């Protein structure tokens, strides 16, 4: 599957004219791979999925259980369900449309809300679980390989778990009594009434769609190693694609001037003096923090000049009106951790009650690829008048691109984003403004292109 076409569709709101000028950046999460794990009830699907995730030990591999997509029951069906007479093991009980929507959203790099289903109440709960930016998603359920529309979205191995019927029944009884508030009699009634007939009718045929058939579930180490190795290889491929794409954005940076929306702080003697103290390796930590806070305060003040203002006439104490300005609306901030947190003191001096989101992006030590590890944003961020995105340094621009993309994915229009950084290189700035030409960028210092991050370790002293 070509993931590029998906993220292009994601940016489809842009006019054709700007489209041609705009360089393209596809974040790694717009390139989601889905693995389907199907098999009879009690065959060890979820155990296998969890074992795979544990073995990979990566934050971007998530399990989506099809149990979340049971259709909500009407009162009559609900009554039947409580008497163990409702057929939960038929494909009709599954809301494939909702599942498809979730998978399509995730494929497009958007966040998706997954319904929460209560087995005790036989109902969908009010709350939802939010999934954002996985690179690999394991879809696990008896009918994971049933709907052709869902199958079309899968581009990785499709797994079918097989176990003998006695094992399945006993596992199922244990689970349903322990976790789902059922009785042993009820379980047996369901098994012979629905599970077994449906198994032969609907579940077994999925075997034909599977790439791998895993007998004995978790105990089958060979199959598990095969699957995890396959995923690891796939992730590595994605990461090299991503890095190659980042590299291709460099083209033309030497010949082109920087975007007009890049504002570099005027190098006054005071600023240069502060920089001298900040950059001198021999400056004491105490002085470093003091001068960095002072600098960051000026940087934030400058960043705020790029938010939107409106006219406001006020009455002064002399009774004569003054035609002034006021910010159009709320200005919030998002810190790109850990570097962005160095600006927190400066930010609080300028906007003491500024609402602040955080995201953690780390460069993978092995591949050098930036990776999104953590994300917490104000809920209504898409409605804020401006969002300051803060990071202490920007060299390749990889994490900057990713951070802006996250905000855009959450509905923040580009022209409301002001990216501010203590230092940046031309390549990084060029990449960032090529991909997001409408954002404003405020830079404290221009430095050489590839500079290792040092500000945060100096500021936090570790």
């Amino acid at each position: 599957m070509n993931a590029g076409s998906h993220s292009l569709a994601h940016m489809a709101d842009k006019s054709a004219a700007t489209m041609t000028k705009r360089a393209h950046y596809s974040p790694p999460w717009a390139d989601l791979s889905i693995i389907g794990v199907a098999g009879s009830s009690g065959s060890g699907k979820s155990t296998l999925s969890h074992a795979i995730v544990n073995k990979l030990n990566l934050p971007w591999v998530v399990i989506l259980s099809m149990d979340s997509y049971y259709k909500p029951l009407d009162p009559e069906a609900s009554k039947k369900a409580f008497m163990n007479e409702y057929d939960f093991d038929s494909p009709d009980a599954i809301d494939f449309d909702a599942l498809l929507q979730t998978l399509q959203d995730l494929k497009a790099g958007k966040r998706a809300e997954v319904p929460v289903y209560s087995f005790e109440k036989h109902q969908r709960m009010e709350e939802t679980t939010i999934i954002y930016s996985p690179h690999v998603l394991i879809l696990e359920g008896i009918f994971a390989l049933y709907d052709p529309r869902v199958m079309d979205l899968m581009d990785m191995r499709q797994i079918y778990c097989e176990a003998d019927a006695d094992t399945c029944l006993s596992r199922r009884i244990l689970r349903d009594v322990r976790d789902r508030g059922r009785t042993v009699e009820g379980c047996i009634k369901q098994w012979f009434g629905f599970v077994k007939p449906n198994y032969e009718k609907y579940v077994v045929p999925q075997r034909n769609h599977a790439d791998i058939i895993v007998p004995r579930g978790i105990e089958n180490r060979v199959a598990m190693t095969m699957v995890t190795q396959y995923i690891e290889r796939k992730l590595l491929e994605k990461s090299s694609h991503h890095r190659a794409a980042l590299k291709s954005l460099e083209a033309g940076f030497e010949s082109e001037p920087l975007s007009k929306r890049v504002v570099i702080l005027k190098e006054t003697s005071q600023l240069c003096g502060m920089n001298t103290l900040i950059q001198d390796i021999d400056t004491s930590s105490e002085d470093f923090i003091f001068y960095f806070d002072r600098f960051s305060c000026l940087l934030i003040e400058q960043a705020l000049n790029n938010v939107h203002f409106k006219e406001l006439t006020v009455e002064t104490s002399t009774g004569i009106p003054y035609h002034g300005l006021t910010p159009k609306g709320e200005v919030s901030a998002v810190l790109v951790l850990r570097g962005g947190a160095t600006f927190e003191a400066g930010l609080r001096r300028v906007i003491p009650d500024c609402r602040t989101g955080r995201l953690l992006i780390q460069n993978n030590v092995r591949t050098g690829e930036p990776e999104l590890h953590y994300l917490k944003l104000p809920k209504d961020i898409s409605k804020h008048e401006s969002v300051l995105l803060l990071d202490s340094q920007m060299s390749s621009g990889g994490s900057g691109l990713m951070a802006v993309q996250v905000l855009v994915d959450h509905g923040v229009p580009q022209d409301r984003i002001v990216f501010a950084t203590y230092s940046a290189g031309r390549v990084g700035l060029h990449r960032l403004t090529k991909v997001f030409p409408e954002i404003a960028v405020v830079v404290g210092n221009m430095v050489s292109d590839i500079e290792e991050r040092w500000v945060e370790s100096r500021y936090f002293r570790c």
Partner: protein
Amino acid sequence: MASAPGNRPHVGPTQCVGPDYRSESQKPIATVSTEVKYETVTTLPQTPQLIALLTFTVSLTYDDCGYRKIRDRNTERADFIFYSNRIIRLLVEEGLNHLPIVEHTVTTPVGRNYAGLMFQGKICGVSIMRAGEAMEQGLRDCCRSVRIGKILIQRDEETAQPKLFYDKLPEDIAERWVLLLDPMFATGGSAIMAVEVLKSRGVPEERILFLNLIASPEGIGNFATKFPKLRVVTAFVDQGLDSKNYIVPGLGDFGDRFYTM
């Protein structure tokens, strides 16, 4: 830039304010600092952020939708202190740019060289009591352990002339650069007296920087004639003085609003 003629004293120059990359139509229009032609006077760049801060400072009886705010005086005072402090910090940062420097190259944590500079000479602050003391925090935010002298000047009830009541200045003030602090610069009567005190203690005129928030063209003119080498750094030059010698539009008594109102 569309600047209005200055025949009516309360109409200041107006212009579109905002970053260069935005077109005129995208930028809101506001009243900006009145231009003055003295080389010794530095006015802060009229950025939208500065204008918004001034808007908050000159009027706190209206919220940002233009409705009269219903709230107690303490909240109003807290906001006044906060917004004026932010302007003061920008003023101090600008003022410090006028100090002498020498080149100084350092090695950075990543091993490259940074061709930087170092400040030369010692400084001190001198605040004209009481409003000038409101600017001390801003000075301390930039220069941690700076020495601060004080001068108390009051208007003499009988003569209506400013009179020196008290001063306490660093002993070695003659060897220092002096940042003179007083937020409101109307006729400049007390500031002129303060400068004369400093000069009598051996501080040469060219080593004095007078920092203020709002200045009047008259005050600036008086100063430039009397002390042609003294530098003035201000956030905003207002339109003029009214018959009572108050800055127009101005913000009222700064000391009252900061300390007691």
